[in-house]
């Protein structure tokens, strides 16, 4: 059951001199109910922008240029008793609701999106520990979140639920009366997770959930996210630059670069049957703790600035496998499996299958073996400094 369907989404940031930064370009993927989906990439690849745009938390100069964000849920005022959108809403073209009941979040305005936030989609921002208000008790902050989004609850009920939530994430319910500075770093992170789950959302967006944490605490937070998913059945969208974290918690993922999705599909497919030069390069540059003899290879050059990008594949400058076709247009998402079996590149129709944006997806064997050699990467001439 699809929970979130991102359709050809493009997000831009307006900068001076009438230029626009193409932060996210023509991105499509989908998240099912109860699954953990990862967006992985380096800084500037657009993953955080993508995540923020789901609940319209973009900076003032950011806007959705085209595309849709279909979500399986709708505004309270458009619902009937069963929680589905009413018939007349669906029929009426003025409302951004589709035949199958999904709502286009990108088409909602500011007041409307507020009803979706927290109730249906909650976000755990980066450095979440700093998002707790220092002058209010932690328990009160959770209670307030509940009351704001479910106004029919009584204060006592909300308080009870807050304590219960804290306990579920491993904090003594008594600590609800403490202030944020009395919590340790890991506990703050857990409290923020509890706050995010306060209204039982369908989707949890975790933006770099483990950065700035010590490794042992990071371990517990990852476990916490897993437990939350088991208990509440919530879907999680994880944003991170750390592929080892992704390897652990995600079911499916998308690798982003320069505002585009380079490869997407099931986690195992991406790691074991890697089908994109960027992903291959990324894998090579991560040391693993398990291997004693490794050969790390870095990708020379720097990520693009995304200001009025040129035509052609975004990774072309740094890719050792670039051919002429790569200069004319950014490759569409080809279906990997069919490329492997039939030897021909065919565009992917199913958003959930293993897809890769590479014109040479029919030569995967060659790409995979060559990518392991250091010379392949270091011997290219990089034009950009």
């Amino acid at each position, binding site marked *: 059951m699809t929970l979130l369907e991102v359709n050809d989404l493009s997000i831009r940031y307006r900068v001076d001199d009438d230029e626009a930064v193409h932060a996210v370009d023509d991105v499509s993927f989908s998240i099912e109910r109860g699954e953990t989906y990862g967006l992985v990439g380096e800084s500037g690849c657009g993953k955080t922008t993508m995540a923020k745009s789901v609940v319209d938390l973009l900076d003032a100069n950011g806007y959705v240029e085209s595309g849709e964000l279909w979500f399986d849920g709708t505004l309270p005022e458009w619902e009937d008793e069963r929680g589905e959108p009413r018939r007349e809403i669906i029929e009426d073209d003025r409302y951004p609701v589709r035949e199958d009941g999904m709502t286009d979040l990108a088409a909602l305005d500011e007041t409307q999106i507020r009803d979706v936030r927290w109730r249906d989609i909650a976000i755990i921002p980066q450095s979440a520990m700093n998002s707790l208000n220092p002058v209010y008790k932690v328990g009160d902050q959770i209670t307030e979140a509940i009351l704001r989004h479910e106004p029919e609850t009584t204060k006592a009920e909300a308080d009870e639920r807050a304590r219960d939530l804290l306990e579920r994430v491993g904090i003594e319910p008594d600590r609800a009366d403490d202030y944020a500075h009395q919590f340790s770093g890991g506990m703050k992170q857990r409290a923020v997770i509890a706050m995010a789950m306060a209204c039982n959302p369908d989707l949890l967006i975790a933006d770099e959930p483990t950065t700035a944490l010590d490794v042992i605490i990071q371990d517990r937070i990852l476990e916490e996210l897993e437990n939350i998913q088991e208990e509440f059945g919530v879907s999680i969208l994880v944003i991170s630059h750390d592929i*080892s974290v992704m390897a652990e918690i995600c079911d499916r993922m998308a690798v982003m670069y320069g505002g585009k999705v380079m490869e997407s599909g099931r986690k195992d497919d991406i790691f074991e049957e890697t089908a994109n030069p960027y992903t291959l390069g990324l894998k090579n540059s991560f040391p693993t703790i398990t291997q004693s003899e490794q050969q790390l290879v870095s990708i020379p050059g720097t990520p693009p600035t995304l200001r009025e990008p040129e035509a052609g594949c975004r990774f072309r400058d740094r890719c050792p496998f670039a051919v002429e076709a790569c200069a004319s247009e950014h490759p569409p998402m080809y279906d990997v499996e069919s490329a492997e079996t039939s030897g021909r590149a065919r565009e992917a129709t199913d958003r959930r299958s293993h897809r890769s944006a590479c014109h040479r997806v029919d030569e995967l064997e060659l790409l995979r073996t060559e990518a392991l050699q250091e010379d392949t990467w270091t011997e290219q001439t990089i034009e950009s400094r």
Partner: protein
Amino acid sequence: MDRTDDREPLVEVENVSKLFDMSQGVVDTVLGRDPNPVRAVDDVSFTIERGDVVGIAGESGCGKTTLGKLLVQLYEPTEGSIRFDGTDVTSMTTAQEREFRQRVQMIFQDPFESLNPRMTVYDTVAEPLKLNDIGEGYDDRRERVRDVLNDVGLAPAEVYLDSFPDELSGGERQRVAIARALVVDPDFVVADEPVSMLDVSIRAGVLNLMKRLQDEYDLTYLFISHDLSLIRYMCDRAGIMYLGNMVEQGRTDELVEDPKHPYTEALFDAVPDVELGDERRRANATGEVPSPRNPPSGCRYHPRCAHIIPPDGWTGSQEAFRRAFQFKLKVRRGELGPGSVDEGVADDPEELVAHGLTLDVPDEYQSRTEVETGGHRVDLSAVDLPPDARQVLLDAAQSIFDGDVESAAAALDERFTTVCESDRPAPRPADGRDVACHLYDGGGPGATDSRVGAPTDD
């Protein structure tokens, strides 16, 4: 430690401690309070041989950065001695100090901060040359700078020489920092988290560069990082630090595959890994790193340790002791009260004990009841406690309900003692490395006092 070389070690650190905030304000002195310094580095000893690549790993607050700065003489040790090539660095003549400054260099963590924004790349890299009186004249210096820039991969060097730092990317800046360190042809380089602020795809390039330069320039490295996979990739030997103590040191491969110290084991378990994916075993440790200002007594790691040693004469299981000890800690911290149990059983001491004996560890280390109740309580009958210990726990719970937390804490303190809390373990050789843990110095259960020279702590 491996001492296969007959030559003298390059760097010898002996019982070095560094304390901060030793002085105090007027008010505190008047009120008769003792100063409470931060023991950033506490009684650390190790040696580095020529050509080694040694790593220092640990989480925040463990003192690794302070240790790095001690080695380059940015700080002076409060206690202990540091010897570089035989010379004690704290009592050097001016000439020796000049030599030291040329032979020992440092690479800093933040590429954006470690370059002076008002100096060009040439200025920055040539500065050590000027300070050490190397090079005859401007042209010679410029040539040397050009050479070293080419060595670190910033080619063509001419393009970079006159740029200012804000024109360069993070990876380029870090390479300039490396060039600056290498331009005087040093022997020993301390690298403090050199890649942690760089993009992930750039990191490997800088690391590989450092490896290559080690051969070219005949360098010895001390590599400081919190990223254990990096340590494994770069370093032959490593030391693990926790709250200022060096808890284990030895060959990196052995540390990873067969960790002796419980903290080392937890640390390496906790690292996510692409190969292991979701099969990874989680870290068996409770709680978080406490503040270095108030470290735990005895072995600093004991409140979190999975292998805490029960006292002599403990008839129950080690796990039960661990739980009981955690109970004691919770009471001491004031975390257990009448509100900890459900409303329906508000007065039942058994319920409080069942709740307090839970362990804040990953699911795979919890008992079945714990997992079922979401970490809320254990099955008291299944915990293998000696009967008198159980009674002490129940009595303490009753005291808590009666409002007398102090006597509960006192009783628990008396009953549940451990050598890990009372005595600080000294580093001892075990299986080719040095480990500071009572498990390896004869302090195990049932052993008599065979500890030699282990210092007592208050």
